[in-house]
């Protein structure tokens, strides 16, 4: 099954890039500037963590593989590490470009020399988490007990399992305390979980476009996506790899649904409106008509289903649904956050309706009530949930300012 792994590794691409490509034409100048301050050529690394990892569900992974990238240099006292936590479809390739490729990592707008997460000042670690499909142990990996891919048998995961696995990588890198743990969406959930589970091992948590728990509407969208995948006859109850099949259509449909919810009505209106890609709507014609948005969504779905694993999609959407920060704290977010010791930066985007500003405000209110250091910025943006990945002057300035203060402190300044 090693071939499978290699195939996946060879297909390191991200849906977010595609979004950049199709929706960001007006920002091409901006992207050009970013190219100038890229971390440049990067090479993924991997480690097999031999220490058993007991998952929240009770299952023990005797060992697991993690693929990761690092940008910048670890300082002498190993205190300038920043952990990047990816979201649903993310991977370890957050910045720079791989050999022979021009495409940059999914958060290249924000990670690099002189960028908000400054690789001149921080040692940035970006890891592909277990259960995902870019080389780290997941449903497409070989189950040592059967010699076949895990498929649907891969154990269910929680955000805390990702945190536990990231902590093993942290130990491998001999880092005792992160300067910051940073993430958007599901990534923000991990940052919050870090702050509660290992309060002495991070100085800052940056929680972007995230939530302490998903709303019913959010879970509903995830279930529709899962149903789409499972309805594909090629899904074979999750064991499609053993049958040399891929539920391409189901996964594409799942992604199309997700994609619509990550954008805003305004943005789709601006970029596509009611423009037609083919045919016209004059009376007396029978030719088929295709709207630009239809074509765009189909393209996005197809592209995504070429590189993402359907079981991973099901697994990670469930992980999102199950996340409830304060569940073990009597459902009291203030009680939950009273365990945290780090400082927080919370960021939301005005047109994000999947992880709305109200959710970020709830996080902020709970942190204030718990007496924790927190700053909250509400960024104006038309880009919906995906805004956290895209260039935005105010967001860049705020995140950069916050982290530069941290870098000053680490470097012995005020």
């Amino acid at each position, binding site marked *: 099954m090693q071939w499978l792994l290699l195939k996946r590794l060879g297909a390191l691409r991200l849906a977010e890039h595609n979004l950049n490509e199709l929706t960001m034409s007006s920002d091409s100048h901006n992207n050009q500037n970013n190219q100038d301050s890229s971390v440049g050529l990067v090479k993924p690394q991997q480690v097999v963590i031999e220490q058993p990892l007991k998952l929240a569900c009770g299952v023990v992974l005797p060992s697991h593989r993690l693929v990761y990238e690092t940008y910048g240099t670890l300082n002498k006292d190993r205190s300038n590490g920043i952990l990047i936590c990816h979201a649903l479809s993310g991977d370890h390739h957050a910045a720079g470009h791989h050999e022979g490729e021009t495409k940059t990592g999914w958060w290249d707008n924000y990670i690099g020399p002189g960028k908000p997460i400054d690789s001149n000042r921080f040692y940035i670690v970006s890891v592909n988490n277990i259960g995902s499909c870019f080389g780290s142990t997941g449903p497409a990996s070989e189950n040592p007990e059967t010699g076949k891919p895990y498929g649907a048998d891969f154990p269910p995961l929680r955000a805390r399992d990702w945190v536990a696995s990231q902590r093993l990588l942290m130990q491998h890198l001999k880092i005792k305390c992160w300067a910051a743990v940073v993430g958007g969406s599901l990534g923000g959930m991990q940052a919050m979980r870090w702050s509660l589970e290992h309060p002495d091992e991070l100085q800052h948590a940056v929680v972007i476009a995230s939530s302490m728990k998903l709303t019913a509407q959010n879970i509903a969208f995830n279930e529709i996506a899962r149903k789409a995948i499972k309805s594909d006859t090629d899904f074979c109850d999750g064991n499609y790899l053993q049958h040399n099949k891929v539920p391409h259509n189901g996964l594409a449909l799942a992604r199309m649904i997700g994609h619509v919810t990550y954008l805003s009505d305004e943005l789709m209106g601006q970029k596509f409106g009611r423009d037609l890609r083919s045919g016209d709507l004059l009376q007396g014609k029978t030719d088929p008509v295709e709207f630009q948005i239809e074509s765009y969504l189909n393209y996005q779905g197809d592209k995504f289903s070429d590189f993402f694993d359907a079981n991973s999609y099901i697994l990670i959407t469930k992980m999102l649904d199950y996340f409830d920060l304060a569940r073990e704290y009597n459902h009291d977010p203030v009680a939950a956050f009273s365990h945290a010791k780090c400082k927080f930066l919370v960021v939301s985007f005005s047109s994000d309706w999947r992880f709305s500003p109200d959710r970020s405000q709830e996080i902020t209110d709970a942190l204030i009530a718990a007496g924790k250091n927190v700053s909250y910025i509400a960024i104006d943006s038309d880009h919906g949930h995906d805004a956290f990945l895209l260039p935005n002057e105010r967001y860049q300035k*705020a995140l950069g300012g916050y982290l530069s*203060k941290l870098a000053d402190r680490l470097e012995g300044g005020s």
Partner: protein
Amino acid sequence: MNHKLDLIKPWIEPNSRVLDLGCGDGALLASLQEQLDVIGYGLEIDPDSISSCLEKGVNVIEQDLNKGLKNFADQSFDTILMTQTLQALRYPHLVLDEILRIGSKCIVTFPNFGHWRTRAYLNFLGRMPVTKQLAYQWYDTPNIHFFTYDDFEALCKERSINILHREFMAQGMADKALKSVFPNLFTEIAVYHLSR
């Protein structure tokens, strides 16, 4: 700024919880954090001011005062600060009630419209005053209420707000000498320490 800090510092307990409504660039909170080790938060809506706070390591929350403070629990702060903001709010009297719900005490400063220079401006020029403290034209000003030291004292009495301390700030030599005798005439900025 330092003058103001010296003035209000004795009213704030070390290590206490402070909420600064309309915190600007966060300089006051940064000083209070440094000198009194307070747990401070600033509310602000101006993007540049918010960035300045973040760069200073001051906790800043992007929130519009005019949309209320319902997200803050009763008596969850020791001191609420509101410097030079009252005159810019839609309903200052309601905000005063609200901040004394959230904080056990509050410190409020505002430009005194009763200062002789403002009076003279209106009296002799017949135009709305544009002074150092009120540096805007009438049609483009964030300051939508003009009130005097005496007006504020009357409001406190009407709403049963206790005045713990009052200080008058003035710059000119004559103002400094006369502000304690005729505060409404010679105070440029009034500083109040209030409770309920």
